[in-house]
């Protein structure tokens, strides 16, 4: 990649400068012109552009662009180019087996259709419930685990490894496990509540409980992640704070509630953002649960509805419109987070 670029630069430079050394930085600096910069020698168009860019952006700008420009363009095309394109498609009426959307007639019909579609409203509400419920429950469980592990226990590493284990599994795999856990006749969940004389419950068949059941399963998978983030936050708190609280006569509960947890704000925010993103990607889990595009009744979320509308029903434009709504939801979480990080100089 570098060699090609160097050759490109060399080719673009005026041929009269062929005797000059081509620097590895891609710029052309002759000994002569470097010695007498004011002699009026023309650095060539490439040199001039390089100079102008460097003086605008900083001395290493052009030399460093070799490292990041191409990957950045690839990423920008696939992420931001695609989102803009998606927005455009959502304004068309593209559906069915046509090869490409017809961009000549753009309107907001698909968004109007979404607002009139009870399935969409349900999915939006479910997405919201999943987002809040899953994030909240997972953070609490993760925090408790982190505090327990941070109390100087033995076998700390083993416990941590076990708690984080589900995180290494794919949604597709954990969906199989929980399908079996929630099985009506032989599932462990029903055996456990049977001990208390409850159930059996059709966890995935009953609209009233299916969403909490899914939140519970997702919590199982990701609470280890929240724990790891909180653990890092706890480790950053100097042990003097624990000792000071103890000296001040605070009980253990009070100490955590009033001294330690308030200091975990940063950890909470970053963990919450990532968990919400996981929740929006819960598509894989729901798809694998049923092995198809239609999740259990009462558990349809925007992510699954979008894919179903586009790829099962071939309502491409409608799917795109739902995707834009989902993207807006994500943006409302991520935007403030990035601004927060930027303000704290973390970028």
């Amino acid at each position, binding site marked *: 990649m570098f060699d090609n670029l160097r050759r490109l630069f060399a080719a673009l430079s005026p041929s009269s400068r062929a005797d000059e050394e081509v620097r590895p930085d891609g710029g052309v600096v002759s000994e002569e012109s470097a010695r007498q910069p004011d002699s009026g020698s023309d650095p060539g168009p490439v040199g001039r552009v390089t100079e102008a860019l460097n003086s605008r952006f900083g001395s290493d700008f052009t030399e460093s662009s070799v490292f990041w420009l191409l990957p950045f363009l690839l990423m920008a095309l696939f992420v931001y180019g695609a989102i803009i394109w998606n927005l455009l498609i959502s304004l068309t009426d593209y559906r069915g087996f046509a090869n490409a959307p017809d961009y000549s007639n753009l309107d907001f019909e698909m968004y109007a259709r979404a607002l009139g579609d009870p399935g969409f409203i349900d999915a939006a509400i479910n997405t919201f419930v999943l987002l809040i419920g899953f994030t909240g429950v997972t953070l609490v469980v993760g925090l408790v685990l982190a505090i327990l592990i941070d*109390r100087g226990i033995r076998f700390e590493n083993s416990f941590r490894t076990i*708690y984080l284990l589900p995180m290494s599994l794919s949604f597709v795999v954990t969906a199989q496990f929980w399908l079996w856990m929630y099985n009506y006749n032989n599932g462990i969940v029903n055996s456990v509540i049977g001990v208390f004389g409850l159930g059996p419950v059709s966890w995935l068949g009953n609209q009233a409980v299916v969403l909490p059941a899914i939140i519970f399963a997702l919590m199982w998978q990701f609470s280890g992640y929240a724990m790891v983030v909180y653990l890092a936050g706890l480790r950053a708190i100097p042990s003097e704070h624990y000792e000071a609280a103890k000296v001040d006569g605070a009980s253990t509960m009070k100490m955590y509630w009033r001294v330690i947890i308030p200091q975990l704000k940063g950890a909470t925010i970053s963990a919450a953002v990532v968990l919400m993103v996981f929740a929006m990607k819960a598509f894989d889990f729901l798809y694998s649960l049923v092995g198809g595009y239609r999740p259990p009744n009462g558990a349809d979320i925007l992510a699954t509805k979008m894919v179903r509308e586009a790829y099962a029903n071939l309502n491409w434009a409608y799917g795109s419109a739902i995707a834009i709504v989902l993207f807006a939801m994500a943006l409302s979480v991520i935007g403030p987070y990035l601004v927060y990080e930027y303000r704290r100089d973390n970028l």
Partner: protein
Amino acid sequence: MSDTESRTDGDAAVTARIRQNLEQTTVEDVGLYVVLLVMAAFYLVPIESGLVTSFKTGTAVIETAPFAPPGPSGFTLAKWQAAVDALLRGMGNSLLYAVPATVISAVVGSLMAYGLTIPNWKQAYKAPLLAIIIAGIFIPYQAVLVPLTQFWSQWVELTSLLSFVWALGIPNDYAGIIELIVTHVAYGIPMCTLLFRTYYTNLSEEMIESARLDGASLRRVYRRIVLPLSGPMFAVVLIYQFTQIWNDLLFTLVLVATESSPAAPVVLILAGLGSSLEGQDFALRMAGAFLAALPTLAVYIFFGDEFAEGVAA
């Protein structure tokens, strides 16, 4: 350097706390360990139950408790045999795109993070660029699916562009594998860049300046100073990326489409495994789930610390 220092500090604090605990073992401590063990059981039971079930015959699945091991009469390897038959092809396909995509995105992420961290250009321009890149981590992929389909089916038609490859007798479904590599690299770049960037900002600034003064160009600084020092971070990023790509279903679903395709990745086959008109064969499903999870489980067990570091970043 500073990393190890803080870790030893942490260890000292922890040992102090352990000592404190040993001196006064109380009911409270016993309670603590009981809670920890119950939680460990909570995380392990679904996995354990899946594992024992995968070795059970159809009758044993119904007759024995879901977490109990199969008796000698209920034990069978038939389900594993079936799972291997069904998934082995998919696992090969998954490796075919997961490995190159992982390696490429790690290398690209390292290069990009270097270009955006170490060279001397204005922070006022670097910061927004970084914000754009980092925001890319959090994009719900649904927002790019339809254009992605359009891109690969209408704009860059690998099935026709690479016709000379298919002429060699390779099924043209494998175009999907190449599409998956490019796609995963493109969407993996933000996370890889972020991970490497965090690492590179902690490198000694004076050391880099020293290398520049020693006459090394940016390229040489990367090659001779930064890259050799990136080893630990490469481990973290490779593990993270591999787990992500291996586990992803959405892109395979959209780009490869059918589980019957010769190029179908393992997740795609697994999602539909063991369900038929007669009902669900849970033993087969569990065996398949374990088989599919095997590479990521192995990575997790052998490189647990790097995995934890990757997800915590």
